[in-house]
């Protein structure tokens, strides 16, 4: 567990670090790449910009120079030398016209290269050779020269033949303009412009130089930028520049020097001249802008990177938190599972101990019996013990089965009509032997019973009560007292329900408070020296609680060590729709004798319900006194209900004494104990009969009714009762002939007419062949050859007959609740257990037929 947790942590941390590194790497790469890319783009843009710039400038130069040359041509055309013979007038006209066009100098150019100034100071050409050769070839040409004062002048030469002073004929007329005119018109040196330009000759010497350049040669200028270092590099640039000038190509390069920073240099040739335009754009400012952009870009990138990392960290943190929580939850679940499995293994070890004990007894006793096979007494003794042990073993196994049913959610509650008086009766008779064996006092108290007939799973209700009672007996010492009480009150669930309280109280060893919390958990038993010798699975209470809860009830427990324990069950039961027999008896004069006041009063209540007003008293002596008194008044009691166990003289002695007073009285002994042993003695003492406790209304009614015959001639109806189904026809499916005969014998007592079907198929056939409404009901065995009862029921239910919904009652020997559920699921109306009980069948038939 720990390791896997660490593994998860390591994985998390590793991926976090990996992602961090990746992030940093990718973003740095992006920043770097973008910086490069932007530099590249800037330089590309520079080239495009520069080339168009210089194109503009050279175009401008071309038009400006072209215009000036055209002016010169026009001058020559208007004032021709042939027109006037007057030289002065000619020169005046030329001067006038030239000045009007802005020329500051005007001269005639001889074949030898001499100037004859017409206007302005004497000039000379700085580089006369190319100019002269062009002039001789009668081309138009522009060149730079200077006047006597050293002012730089741009000279425009246009071929023209005029008479010169020397007598020669000129080859050209040359006009001069100050250099500033060119640089102004071309805006070569505008302040604040990013680009400045020079005009140079092939050898690098300046024709026109921008202000911030010094020296006379641009190449020298370039060399000086490198300041003596890396001369080779400067020379390389110069060579390239010269080569492109020679080839007339445009040249574009980015120079990087320490002194001037990065500069973009662009060079192209200018028309009409031997000049070249060199434009230079220092990148200083641009670079600043670009690097500011780059910085911003880097910052933004880093910021983004940071945000992403932060989010990642958050996500990882959250994930880590979740993982940790999950791991904790897993740990808790694991802990729980271990606890549960521990409880189960403890249970198994307890169980194996508990199972081994009776098993050992069985094995041992079998061995003893085998060894003493001829000694019948011994064998009988062994067999008795074996039988006891097996019963105990069976109980254990049943508990385990129940528990596994509960745990797998398969325990189903049946809902059948039960009579609480019957339930209590059977309960009392089941626990009697155990109570007798431990010589415990057993009190049963029933009071405020609203309805005896309710709907409930009788088997499970019995199980619950038996569990509580046998626990009480087990954990109460010999001679202790066990109280069982039952009472009812109106249910909050409505009129169709009744709330039943069941209480089992003992004065036994009790339970420790810490165990009280766990008493209803599976597989728990108080681990204590006091109880180690008492067998049990530790499942009983868990099963009990489950059943009570499944019935929709609650169970509470109060207990104190050494003082005793009280279990209190409250459950709302549905009232059964049975028409209660009108239980009314003649108005007998009766006396109830019981040492429990509650008991007396409850009995009196019940008696009142069946039409009898009775007296009561709490001990034998006073009972005898009361009998005497009534006798003297000639108003004898007719029936006396006498508790067996009374303080002072007991029931039997009391009966004897009463018999001594009067003879014409029925004395009935009431008791929660088994009276078989005292029966003889009691009869001899004059007891007329017995009524078992608890005293329900019905118990009293049926217990007292026989005396109605002897007392007064109350007509008994029960004689006719069995024949309540006179003439009713019932189809009985049962594969065994003997069983069929028994059933027929029993059921014909009810006046029923039965037809026998030997299996499901015959049953279906018979039903099909009968007229509609011929049969009133079908009694169906489940396990039959050819076709089972379940299948037959499904076929009958699927028939297209009006009476296809005929009541079908299942009869089976397997009274598991699952079987019963299956019967009901496939369409049967009710279920009776085998061997069939005539009363039960009569009850069902009455329900369905009437």
């Amino acid at each position: 567990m720990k390791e896997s947790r660490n593994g998860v942590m390591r994985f998390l941390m590793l991926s976090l670090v990996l992602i961090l590194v990746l992030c940093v790497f990718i973003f740095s790469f992006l920043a770097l790449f973008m910086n490069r890319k932007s530099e590249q783009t800037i330089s590309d843009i520079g080239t495009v910009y520069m080339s168009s710039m210089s194109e503009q400038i050279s175009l401008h130069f071309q038009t400006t120079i072209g215009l000036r040359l055209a002016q010169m041509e026009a001058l020559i055309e208007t004032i021709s030398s042939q027109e006037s013979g007057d030289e002065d007038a000619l020169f005046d006209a030329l001067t006038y016209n030239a000045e009007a066009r802005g020329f500051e100098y005007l001269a005639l150019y001889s074949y030898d290269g001499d100037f004859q100034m017409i206007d302005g100071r004497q000039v000379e050409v700085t580089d006369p050779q190319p100019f002269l050769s062009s002039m001789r070839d009668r081309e138009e040409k522009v060149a730079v020269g200077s006047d006597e004062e050293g002012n730089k002048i741009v000279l425009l030469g246009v071929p023209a033949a005029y008479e010169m002073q020397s007598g020669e004929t000129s080859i050209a007329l040359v006009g001069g303009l100050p250099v500033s005119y060119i640089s102004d018109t071309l805006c070569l040196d505008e302040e604040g412009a990013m680009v400045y330009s020079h005009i140079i000759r092939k050898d690098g010497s300046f024709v026109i130089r921008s202000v911030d350049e010094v020296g006379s040669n641009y190449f020298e200028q370039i060399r000086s930028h490198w300041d003596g270092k890396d001369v080779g590099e400067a020379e390389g640039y110069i060579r390239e520049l010269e080569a492109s000038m020679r080839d007339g190509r445009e040249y574009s390069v980015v120079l990087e020097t320490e002194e001037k920073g990065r500069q973009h240099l662009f060079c192209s040739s200018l028309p009409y001249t031997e000049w070249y335009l060199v434009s230079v754009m220092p990148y200083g400012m641009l670079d600043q802008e670009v690097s500011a952009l780059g910085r911003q870009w880097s910052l933004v990138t880093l910021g983004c990177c940071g945000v992403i990392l932060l989010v990642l960290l958050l996500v990882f943190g959250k994930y880590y938190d979740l993982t940790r929580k999950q791991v904790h939850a897993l740990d808790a679940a694991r802990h729980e599972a271990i606890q549960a499995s521990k409880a189960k293994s403890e249970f198994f070890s307890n169980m194996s101990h508990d199972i081994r004990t009776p098993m050992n007894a069985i094995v041992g006793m079998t061995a003893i019996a085998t060894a003493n096979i001829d000694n019948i007494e011994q064998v009988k003794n062994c067999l008795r013990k074996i039988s006891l042990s097996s019963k105990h073993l069976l109980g254990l196994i049943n508990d385990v089965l129940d528990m596994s049913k509960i745990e797998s959610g398969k325990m189903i509650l049946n809902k059948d009509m039960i009579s609480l008086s019957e339930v209590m009766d059977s309960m009392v008779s089941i626990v009697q032997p155990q109570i007798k064996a431990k010589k415990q006092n057993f009190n049963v108290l029933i009071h405020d019973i609203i309805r005896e007939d309710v709907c409930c799973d009788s088997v499970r209700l019995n199980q619950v009560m038996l569990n509580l009672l046998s626990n009480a007996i087990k954990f109460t010492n010999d001679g202790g007292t066990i109280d069982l009480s039952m009472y009812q009150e109106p249910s909050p669930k409505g009129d169709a329900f009744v709330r039943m309280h069941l209480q089992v109280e003992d004065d036994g060893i009790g339970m420790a408070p810490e165990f009280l919390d766990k008493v209803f958990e599976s597989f728990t038993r108080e681990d204590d020296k006091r109880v180690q010798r008492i067998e049990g699975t530790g499942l009983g209470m868990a099963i009990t609680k489950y059943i009570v809860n499944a019935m929709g009830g609650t169970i509470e427990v109060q207990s104190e060590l050494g003082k005793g324990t009280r279990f209190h069950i409250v459950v709302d039961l549905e009232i059964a729709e049975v028409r209660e027999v009108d239980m009314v008896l003649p108005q007998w004069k009766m006396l109830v004798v019981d040492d429990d006041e509650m008991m007396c009063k409850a009995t009196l209540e019940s008696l009142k319900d069946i039409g009898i007003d009775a007296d009561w008293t709490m001990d034998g002596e006073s009972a005898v006194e009361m009998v005497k008194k009534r006798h003297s008044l000639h108003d004898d009691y007719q029936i006396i209900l006498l508790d067996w166990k009374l303080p002072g003289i007991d029931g039997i002695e009391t009966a004897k004494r009463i018999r001594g007073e009067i003879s014409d009285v029925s004395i009935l002994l009431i008791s929660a104990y088994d009276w078989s042993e005292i029966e003889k003695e009691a009869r001899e003492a004059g007891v007329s009969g017995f009524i078992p406790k608890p005293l329900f209304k019905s118990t009293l009614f049926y217990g007292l009714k026989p005396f109605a015959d002897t007392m007064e001639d109350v007509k008994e109806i029960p004689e006719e009762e069995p024949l309540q189904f006179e003439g009713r026809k019932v189809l009985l499916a049962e594969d065994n002939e003997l069983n069929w005969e028994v059933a027929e014998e029993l059921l014909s007592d009810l006046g029923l007419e039965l037809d026998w079907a030997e299996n499901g198929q015959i049953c279906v056939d018979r039903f099909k062949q009968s007229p509609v409404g011929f049969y009133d009901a079908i009694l169906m065995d489940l396990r039959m050859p050819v076709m089972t009862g379940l299948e037959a029921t499904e076929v009958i239910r699927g028939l297209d007959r009006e009476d296809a919904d005929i009541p079908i009652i299942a009869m089976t020997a397997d009274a598991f609740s699952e079987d019963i559920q299956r019967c009901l699921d496939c369409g049967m109306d009710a279920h009776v257990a085998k061997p069939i009980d005539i009363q039960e069948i009569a009850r069902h038939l009455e329900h369905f037929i009437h």
Partner: protein
Amino acid sequence: MDLKECYAALGGDYEGVVARLGGEWLVQRFVRKFLADGSYDLLCQSLEEENYKDAFRAAHTLKGICQSLHFTQLYESSSSLCDMLRTGAWRPEIDGMVAQVEADHKKIVKAVQGLDPEVLGVTGGASRGEEGGA
């Protein structure tokens, strides 16, 4: 022997059966009929043929009859056998239980055959509810 002794010998619940069937004469009639019942033979035959499905059904029927007649011992053994046969397959403990069923059945046959013949004879005449001629 009379019916009470007969039930004691075959390991049954005399009081229970008389109370339920409402008279000794009926019990006697059914007990005698038990000898003619084919379930036990079917059980033996099915087991012989290793047809455990039929054997289960036969055991089940036998169990039902025993329940009806309150033959407690045979009911218990046949019921156990029935549970063992429920799966429809042979299991090692079946043989032992078959022997038990056989023994219980034999006991019943012997006891019923030992019933006083005159007791068997009075069945027709006895009225219902009267606890017949023993």
